[in-house]
């Protein structure tokens, strides 16, 4: 059964075409609707329950302000320019602390995954640090660095870096051994092996660590700002929260909590979720 080369090419093209999926793509508008409707509904339900509790006078109005009162406080703060100021102060502190945590976490992660003895020595410590509430570092930081931005960065770094480090180690551990073997067979050695095989292979795990580290650094920052009170420090979200407590202003407290929540969600939705999706889609780990 001899076949000509042209027949072979045609046969192969036919096989390839048959293997391609024939699913119609979903429209973009529908997809946006599918992901945005459920959270909006959930928010509406939450607000109505809150309003119901207020109407039923479950607590005194000073302790349970109505949604509209909180909205009014928010708009007062907004007009006074406080909202953008506190968000900016907190966000840029978080970003600086996070960047430092990234450097420290990446370096320790690489070292731990590379040297077995180091993993045995400090691996458990890194996991332990991850579950240590970072607020525990606040007294230490205040005694060492005084009431300064340095103290705040220290708390953020201690809160965030173990997640980054552990994420990277997990990412490297989870690279399929066959890919490492194929890298060896192609002659990948030393730095080139890290650059072309190990680091890209570890990216999903590393990203998961970075994502978790962001929420840890945001929490740590709030803890630090809530405790470290000084006119020398710019007003951040944590300090706004503290002011609400001092002034017995529950609307302000709830406004601050709302802002902390919104910023945390926004960074996740705008930065980490798209990154994570892009990486996983490229690798065929999600299909939609």
């Amino acid at each position, binding site marked *: *059964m001899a076949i000509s080369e042209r027949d072979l090419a045609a046969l*192969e093209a036919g096989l390839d075409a048959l293997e391609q999926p024939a699913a119609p793509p979903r429209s973009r508008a529908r997809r946006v609707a599918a992901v945005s409707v459920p959270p909006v509904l959930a928010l509406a339900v939450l607000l109505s329950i809150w309003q119901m509790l207020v109407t039923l006078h479950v607590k005194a109005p000073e302790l349970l302000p109505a949604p509209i009162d909180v909205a009014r406080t928010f708009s007062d703060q907004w007009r006074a320019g406080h909202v953008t100021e506190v968000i900016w102060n907190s966000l840029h502190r978080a970003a600086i602390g996070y960047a430092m945590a990234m450097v420290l976490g990446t370096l320790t992660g690489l070292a731990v995954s590379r040297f077995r003895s180091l993993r045995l020595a400090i691996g458990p410590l890194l996991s332990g640090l991850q579950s240590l509430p970072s607020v525990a570092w606040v007294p230490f930081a205040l005694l060492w660095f005084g009431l300064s931005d340095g103290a705040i960065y220290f708390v953020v770094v201690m809160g965030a870096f173990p997640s980054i480090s552990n994420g990277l180690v997990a990412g490297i551990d989870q690279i399929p051994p*066959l890919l490492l073997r*194929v890298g060896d067979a192609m002659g990948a050695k030393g730095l080139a092996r890290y650059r072309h095989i190990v680091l890209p292979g570890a*990216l999903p795990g590393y990203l998961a660590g970075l994502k978790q580290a962001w929420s840890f650094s945001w929490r740590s920052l709030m803890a630090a700002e809530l405790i470290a009170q000084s006119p020398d420090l710019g007003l951040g979200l944590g300090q706004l929260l503290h002011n609400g407590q001092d002034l017995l202003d529950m609307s302000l407290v709830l406004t601050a909590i709302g802002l902390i929540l919104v910023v945390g969600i926004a960074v996740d939705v705008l930065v980490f979720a798209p990154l994570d999706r892009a990486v996983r889609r*490229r690798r065929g780990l999600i299909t939609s």
Partner: protein
Amino acid sequence: MTSVLSRTDVASAAVSVAPTVVSVRDVTKTFGHNGGSVTALDRVSLDIAEREFVCLVGASGCGKSTLLSIIAGLERPSSGSVAVRGGRAALMFQEPALLPWLTVESNIELPMRLQHVAPKQRRARVAELIDLVRLGQFAQSRPHELSGGMRQRVALARALAQEATVLLMDEPFAALDAITRDVLHDELTRIWYEREITVVFVTHNVREAVRLGDRVVLLSARPGRVVSDQQVDITRPRAIETPAVGALSLEITEQLRGQIRLHGHQ
């Protein structure tokens, strides 16, 4: 361009005068320690000539994959020696093992980046190799978007990109469906002929070995030894259905079964 699919057999005539590319001398490989050690390969010797297509066949546990790893330089023999002319062998596995984060094009380019080939040269060779495996349309696709057969063709192009003296293939088509496998047999034969490469092909499928190889080397299992080494004097083009392929396969299968039976009596 002469097609292998319509040529008469010249390879076996060329073999006798062609220089040796791979020389395996008394290679023994044992795993484990004295108490519970297993001998995977026992004084295996093998010479493979330039442009030769050699198939290694054997039952599970005959150490054929170990032998390939040793020729590839990924493992060291316990004793004996292996010499590969030019020092480089490219290796292909049963799974394509493409890097899932790279496009088809970048996967093929990677071995050349690792060998510091200049970018311009790399691009030209990638384009040529993509054409060779007929994946021009899929240069920018990711591995997960391709079928098993297409992925294995990318892996073949990537292995060829290493410009190694010999291509080692470890059951590369074992996981594919029969139709795709048959087409890839023709493709591999074409590429072997066009590119004038040397191939060492490991399989447990005797018919596949006879359909493809100039020579079929049968290995025994535990320990792996060379039982027989036969020239396949069947003119190409061959097909799985070619009567001569069937007849020789039957003969080798009988030898293989004889070897396997020995283990039942131990």
